[in-house]
């Protein structure tokens, strides 16, 4: 029995080692003349229109990056494969080489930096509070003892929990199974507030029956840098991606994409999210960096 355990331990060690190998993504792209982009089915910055068509703010940023990669490698043809990813499988798929460039909406944090690398921050998300316009709630302090909706499986749940402990406030959290469900909790009065990423709140309010009936408080509960994800320990590929992002910031393409995705009507329903460029995102574009979310928290 003991001997078997040794073999098992040995087998596990052997299995774990291939992940430690660094891979040269540029060489792989050049050799295969193809690149696999990780996309999301339904996320604020990358989503599907059906029939294998993807779109979104980060999708467009990546399209520009891929054009730059193609030019850098001097390829005449570069085939792009789209691999839908979820928040559960996106990191393993980048690690094992299935996805070369993940263009979803992944928060850059220290825990994830152990497994993957992040490109320069292209979008800074602010966690905010949405309430009914006539509720009279103006600050998180007004929410003591009230029901607060948020969505299971998001960092907002953790943000709320930490606020509760730090400020000694008692919230009654209600968890929706997805954002639409959480918004329904606010709409139906089961919850007095909905705490979530600002862009998601704005999109849900824009799509609701009575957009004027809701408002987003200016208070920012947490700041999270969202970035494009790539494989760790591949500085050559990261440099090409980062240079492309810097060029997009410099020549105003990124600002144009912001206008296209957050201030103009977008498919499929042609609603306008109406989210002006935030100070935090402006700051990240002015000083391009790949700092994790923990650095933003420390600054506050």
């Amino acid at each position, binding site marked *: 029995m003991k001997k078997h355990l040794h073999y098992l331990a040995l087998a596990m060690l052997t299995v774990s080692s291939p992940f430690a190998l660094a891979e040269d993504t540029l060489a792989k792209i050049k050799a295969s003349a193809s690149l696999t982009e990780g996309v999301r089915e339904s996320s604020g910055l990358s989503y599907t229109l059906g029939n294998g068509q993807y779109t979104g703010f980060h999708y467009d940023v990546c399209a520009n990056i891929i054009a730059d990669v193609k030019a850098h490698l001097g390829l005449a043809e570069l085939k792009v494969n789209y691999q839908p990813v979820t928040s559960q499988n996106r990191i393993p798929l980048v690690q094992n080489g299935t996805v070369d460039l993940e263009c979803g909406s992944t928060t850059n944090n220290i825990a994830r930096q152990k497994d993957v690398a992040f490109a320069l921050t292209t979008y800074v998300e602010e966690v905010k509070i949405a309430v009914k316009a006539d509720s009279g709630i103006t600050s998180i302090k007004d929410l003591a003892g009230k029901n607060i909706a948020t969505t*299971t499986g998001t960092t907002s749940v*953790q943000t709320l*929990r930490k606020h509760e402990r730090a400020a000694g406030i008692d919230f009654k959290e*209600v968890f929706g199974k997805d954002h639409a469900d959480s918004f329904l909790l606010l709409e139906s009065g*089961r919850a007095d507030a909905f705490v979530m990423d600002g862009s998601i709140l704005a999109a849900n309010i824009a799509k609701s029956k009575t957009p004027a009936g809701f408002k987003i408080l200016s208070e920012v509960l947490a700041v999270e840098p969202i970035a494009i994800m790539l494989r760790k320990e591949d500085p050559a590929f990261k440099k090409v991606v980062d240079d492309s992002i810097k060029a997009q910031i410099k020549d105003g393409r990124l600002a144009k994409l912001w206008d296209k995705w957050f201030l103009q009507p977008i498919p499929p329903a042609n609603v306008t999210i109406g989210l002006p460029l935030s100070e935090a995102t402006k700051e990240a574009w002015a000083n391009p960096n790949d700092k994790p979310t923990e650095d933003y928290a420390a600054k506050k």
Partner: protein
Amino acid sequence: MNWDWEVFLQDPGGQHATYWQWLLSAWGWTLSVSLLALALALLMGFVIGMLRTLPDRPGWVLFGTGWTELFRNIPLLLQIFLWYHVIPALIPPLKELSGFTLVVLALGFFTSARISEQVYSGIKALPKGQRYAALAMGMTTAQSYRYVLLPCAFRIILPPLVNEMMGIVKNSSVAFAVSVSELTMFALQVQEETARGVEVYLAVTGLYIVSALAINRLMAWVERHVQIPGLQLSGAAGGGH
């Protein structure tokens, strides 16, 4: 695969000091939902199953059949949402009930429909003579059920009933959808916070297996002890499933 089980020692920054304490609390919620719903399901299942076999009471038979078909023909997750979002909109006082209460009702009624079907078929499987013999001995209808029909039917349906009892533990995972912080919600939330999905899902899977298997073993013991010599089905040695 690089394991990192120490993730359970981290501080999630809320009311629980570590993730493993939160995990235990989540297990407690899963067991509470399951056991309360099971109690409700067994009670309602036996009552409704009996009603459906009552002689000369077409009204009650119709009610029992209606109950069974209503609750077993709607997907469980949809029933949860009906209880949580739709029914309170129609009957405002129900808004005061917690998600926990509503999910116990929804899961209990859903499973009661399935149990009632088993009780019904168990009673129908008995020879007609059993009922007649009981009545001929001067028993009332209630007594014939209490002393003759139900004890025999119960022993016949025990194996599928145990299946149902184990199933309710697994079905309790829908409770996450209405904000009960049970094991499935723990898994969805904590894998996001810690980025250690494999460890989190394995731990939660283990606890589901332990819970369902505990019910299985307990009921195997019950099955052995309620066995009547000479009455068990041919070929059934009793005990396992």
